[in-house]
């Protein structure tokens, strides 16, 4: 006890002194790094609002001096010649993302709850299978996925977009880890009060797990919003393709020419901004979920 009382103040004062200089230096370093990390994104924002003549300026200027909406108009004009207007791609993407977010969170939570709280025969097997598939990128098995989708007869339908997205093992994994934290007594109390299993799930598990649900929703949204695979492989009908696919066709025509860069910048803003806004609002919840993300 004595020794501790003597040692403690000395350590604390040393620590305090070290924090100031170190943190100040660190703040400066991290600030510079953040600027570097955000540079391309700031650039794309500026690029999107540059009028035509500024896009071709030499030497190129980083910041826009006369912001205009020319590029937005240009983006709509690109599709004016084709049979499918851009609004259709956008509509597809919004619809797919909305349905996918709701369906993925619902399906994943429904699956995670019994794995965590019911001791049914096979629950360990199911969970270890899910952990195993965490390690695989579905991109590796695109071809058999294509065969499955065509066998199921969901080519050229919204199901073809949405159903493959539902198989998101990360979602079940994160939710299961989070549900593990709920004390069994809480669920038991509800059961004694006569709540059915579904009510327990809907009234207790989901509200308590809101951070994890939000995180899974974000991940599902990112997956759905940026998904090019389903449009390029499963959709032959042009009017069923998504905005992200449209964007990828824009880049392939982009090559090294500057003419469409403004339009492409606008399109990538449309891809990027929803992600940013959603994350901005839910950041705290995501971090809270990730606390339990560990694989033990």
């Amino acid at each position, binding site marked *: 006890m004595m020794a501790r009382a003597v040692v403690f103040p000395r350590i604390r004062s040393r620590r305090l002194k070290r924090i100031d200089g170190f943190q100040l230096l660190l703040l400066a370093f991290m600030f510079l790094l953040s600027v570097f990390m955000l540079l391309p994104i700031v650039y794309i924002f500026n690029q999107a609002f540059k009028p035509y003549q500024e896009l071709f300026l030499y030497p190129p200027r980083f910041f826009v001096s006369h912001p205009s909406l020319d590029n937005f108009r240009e983006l709509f004009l690109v599709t004016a010649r084709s049979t499918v207007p851009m609004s259709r791609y956008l509509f597809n993407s919004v619809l797919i993302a909305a349905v996918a977010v709701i369906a993925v969170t619902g399906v994943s939570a429904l699956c995670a709850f019994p794995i965590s709280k019911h001791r049914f025969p096979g629950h360990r097997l199911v969970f270890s299978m899910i952990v195993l598939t965490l390690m*695989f990128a579905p991109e590796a098995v695109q*071809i058999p996925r294509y065969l499955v989708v065509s066998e199921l007869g969901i080519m050229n339908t919204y199901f073809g977009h949405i159903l493959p997205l539902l198989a998101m093992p990360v979602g079940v994994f994160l939710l299961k880890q989070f549900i593990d934290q709920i004390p069994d007594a809480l669920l038991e109390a509800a059961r004694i009060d006569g709540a059915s299993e579904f009510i327990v799930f809907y009234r207790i598990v989901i509200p308590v797990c809101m951070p994890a649900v939000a995180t899974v929703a974000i991940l599902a949204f990112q997956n759905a919003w940026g998904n090019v695979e389903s449009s390029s492989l499963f959709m032959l009908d042009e009017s069923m393709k998504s905005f992200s696919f449209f964007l990828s066709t824009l880049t392939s025509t982009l090559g*090294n020419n500057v003419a469409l860069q403004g339009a492409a910048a606008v399109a990538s803003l449309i891809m990027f901004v929803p992600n940013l806004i959603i994350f901005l609002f839910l950041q705290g919840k995501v971090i809270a979920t990730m606390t339990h993300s560990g694989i033990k």
Partner: protein
Amino acid sequence: MSNKQQEAAISAASARTKLHVPAAVPAPVPAEAGIRKREAWLLRLLKEIWVYRLSYLFILPFMLCFAAFIVVPVLAAIGLSFTSYNSIQKPQFIGWRNFQYMLSQDLIFLKYAIPNTFKFSLIVGPGGYIASFLLAWLITQLPARTQRWFTLAMYTPSLTIGIAMSIVWLPLLSGDRLGYLNSVLLKLGLIESPILWVTDKAHLMGSMIVTTLWSSMGVGFLAMLAGLLNVNKELYEAGRIDGVRSRLQEIWYITIPSMKPQMLFGAVMAIVGTFKSGAIGVQLSGVNPTPEYAGHMIINHIDDYGFIRFEMGYAAALSVFLLVLMYLSNKLSWSLFGSKEDE
């Protein structure tokens, strides 16, 4: 065999089924008793399954999608990898020939896809992972009020998913003097003529690595940050009393051991992300295959055979190879960070 013994055997068997260890061959018992015993545990198992029918109903929707879009494709890939299949005629079994061809004759695969994939993954995988950890750690060392904003700044690039990423970078890396990087370097006098960052085979790989690293602070980064924020503070105090002197020692002896699970999750995410992002070369250079195969990865090779040449059997063999590669790298990180006391 007495009644009691039999009961014990049955309960042991049912305990085994609970743990899903395949029931070992039962101890030598008369055939009839064996059958009776097996019937008994089957009955018990069925009863138990029936008791938990609601649980199965809950997991059903996910498991159906999971089976259809992950399990079946993986199994199908393994099956097809032993066949010759052009997607029109029936697959024909040809044994190991796809793998033999892949590892001995497919020059593009051996000369470009494998070295490129290894080079890319060895830099981007561990590099991105270590960077994620370091940045997450640095953020936790900052005053609490600023942490949120730096997290956002680091995480934001990973939101420019997929195709948007190449659009973000293309204007910067564009090969003429209008490309921003070129124009800056020209102005500084570091180069004399514009460099073709994404179309020259000498620079494509570098550009791919930089852009992927830039966007690699994703879910794994957030997981490690959360892990760092939740390390028990008392451990640090205890460590100081026990003679931990520097922050490096602190990281090594306290931080990393107490956030191993998150480190493992981060590693898994990094590996998957790395093998997934192989297609960036095609997106950056705008042509497939990339100029002189400079950015050709296994994943591009699969696309090439699967969707351009329609040699599905061979493409499946390539995917199996990639899956094995992923599995092995995961095994490695598992042995580094996995907890020793398995459940």
